[in-house]
């Protein structure tokens, strides 16, 4: 019976763990396309995919950390501080590669401090990283004097970090990096023992510890990873625009959490996925573009952004439930 087979195939797609995220994104994009067909034009998509991969990399780190049950608000500061430090070092005559390495080491240090304070004092990481957000932002302001600085890497380095490759810039270095990191973290999270540990740490810390997992190490490692990724993507943004400035992190501290949650990551740890994080990022950063193209006036679109966030998450949950039911039903037979 081919119809039955086709149906099964269809069920298989729906029951996939990542179906819900995709479905939500597609619904949203179709909506924006109907409002203004140029939303899906090559030139607009290439605008979207110039910036989104950069934030996507930060969100990946935040997602992993949130799966392990912790937050990092300080990404907004790391995102700004790392390129500023690199710029400072280069202007002191230090070789660009060395400067980049030092910058990323600084990011690792920031992450390590977040982690060690959280783990050792037991203060919620939300507060610890709120504190370090201010600390490092203050330092970024001090070293930059509050001014934007030109950020000029050797052109090869710039091209590796952020350069157009094909299709009018739709395929670009940022996207390649995102894909590399995405695949890597997908493998770690879903197919490697480390992934198991990460989920366990966020799902139930005490139980994970009882099972012999060094939850403190897992957390500290993820804090470091998250900060390094934030620093790396900050560097990418600076390379892209040729400028480093203390406030370039914008509202990244909240936006990255929102992106992760929209992609299905739990605020309480233990749940989430790499693809969800990426799709959450795409959703959050295409809402504004879509609304602008739809010609909505600026006050109304603030309202619509809010409404869309809720609707998107609702659609996502609903799709997830259906997908899960089909998955369970299958196993039940």
């Amino acid at each position, binding site marked *: 019976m081919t119809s039955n087979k086709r149906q099964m195939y269809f069920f298989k797609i729906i029951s996939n763990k990542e179906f819900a995220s995709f479905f939500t994104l597609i619904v949203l994009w179709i909506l924006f396309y109907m409002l203004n067909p140029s939303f899906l034009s090559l030139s607009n998509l290439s605008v979207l995919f110039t910036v989104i991969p950069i934030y996507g990399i930060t969100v990946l780190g935040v997602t992993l950390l949130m799966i392990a049950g912790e937050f990092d608000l300080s990404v907004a500061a790391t995102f700004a501080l790392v390129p500023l430090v690199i710029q400072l070092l280069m202007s002191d005559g230090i070789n660009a590669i060395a400067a980049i390495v030092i910058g990323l080491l600084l990011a690792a240090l920031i992450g390590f401090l977040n982690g060690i304070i959280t783990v050792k004092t037991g203060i919620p990481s939300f507060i610890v990283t709120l504190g370090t957000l201010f600390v490092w932002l203050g330092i970024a302001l001090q070293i930059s004097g509050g001014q934007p600085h030109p950020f000029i890497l050797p052109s090869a380095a710039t091209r590796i970090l952020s350069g157009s490759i094909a299709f009018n810039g739709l395929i670009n270095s940022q996207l390649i990096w995102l894909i590399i990191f995405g695949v890597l973290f997908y493998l770690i999270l879903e197919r490697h023992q480390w992934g198991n540990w990460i989920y366990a740490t966020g799902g139930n810390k005490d139980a994970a510890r009882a099972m012999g997992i060094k939850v403190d190490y897992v957390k500290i490692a993820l804090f470091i990873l998250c900060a390094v990724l934030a620093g790396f993507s900050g560097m990418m943004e600076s390379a892209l625009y040729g400028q480093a400035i203390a406030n370039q992190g914008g509202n990244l501290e909240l936006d990255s959490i929102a992106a992760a949650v929209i992609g299905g990551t739990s605020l309480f740890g233990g749940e989430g996925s790499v693809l969800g994080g990426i799709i959450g990022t795409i959703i959050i950063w295409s809402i504004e573009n879509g609304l602008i193209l739809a010609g909505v006036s600026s006050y109304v679109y603030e309202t619509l952004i809010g409404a869309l966030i809720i609707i998107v998450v609702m659609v996502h949950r609903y799709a997830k*439930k259906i997908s899960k039911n089909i998955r*369970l*039903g299958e196993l*039940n037979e």
Partner: protein
Amino acid sequence: MSEKTQPVVKMVNIHKWFGNLYALRGVDLEINRGEVIGLVGDNGAGKSTLMKILAGYHKPDKGEIYVEGKKVEFNSPHEAREMGIEMMYQDLSLINTMNIVRNFFLGREITGRFGFLKFNKMKEEVKKAIEDIGLKIPNLELRADELSGGQRQGLAFARSYYFKKKVLILDEPTNNLSVKETNKVLSFIRSLKELNISVIFVTHNLFHVHEAADRIVVISRGRKIGDFPKSQISVTELASLITHGS
């Protein structure tokens, strides 16, 4: 039909799905006044789910519940309690962040005027209830997550026992208890007969159930596969029924 023969609770053709997971596939259960029913079955058979439906925690997707002959529909555990059905949950339903006294009277606080709490009265009552079942807890200010496994279990049992009315459901009440306290719990169950209170006793310990129950109900994969007066089945027969499912 006379008062005597009418079952206090009757569950008819109960079905429950969790999404597409078919947990209960049409279960009937009658509970007579003053009767102790032992409910047994494999892990995941659906015992807790059935009991949670009776206690108003879940709503059945299909099926009816009658209390003293009247059809009822519980929208919340609160409504089941009003009808005299009290349950001790398998997960104990303790709030880790609250202390013992607050946990004990949760949802049924002893209050004075305007709903303000009477702490001293509550403390006395808890102390009595805990001592009654022979449990030792050094101080009542401890939070639930600062208790040992047995203390938690004892507290949850003491609570449901304290508030018993018509039907008392005990979902694995003796799990973490010491021998001494287990025996106490079993003797409490038997003593409820005199008060004309029905008990449903869910457990995996077939000796306990054989010792305490009047009637034994066996559930397997969401269906009832046996319902015997205690005298008609031995522990070994029971064990093979559960393991082989027929």
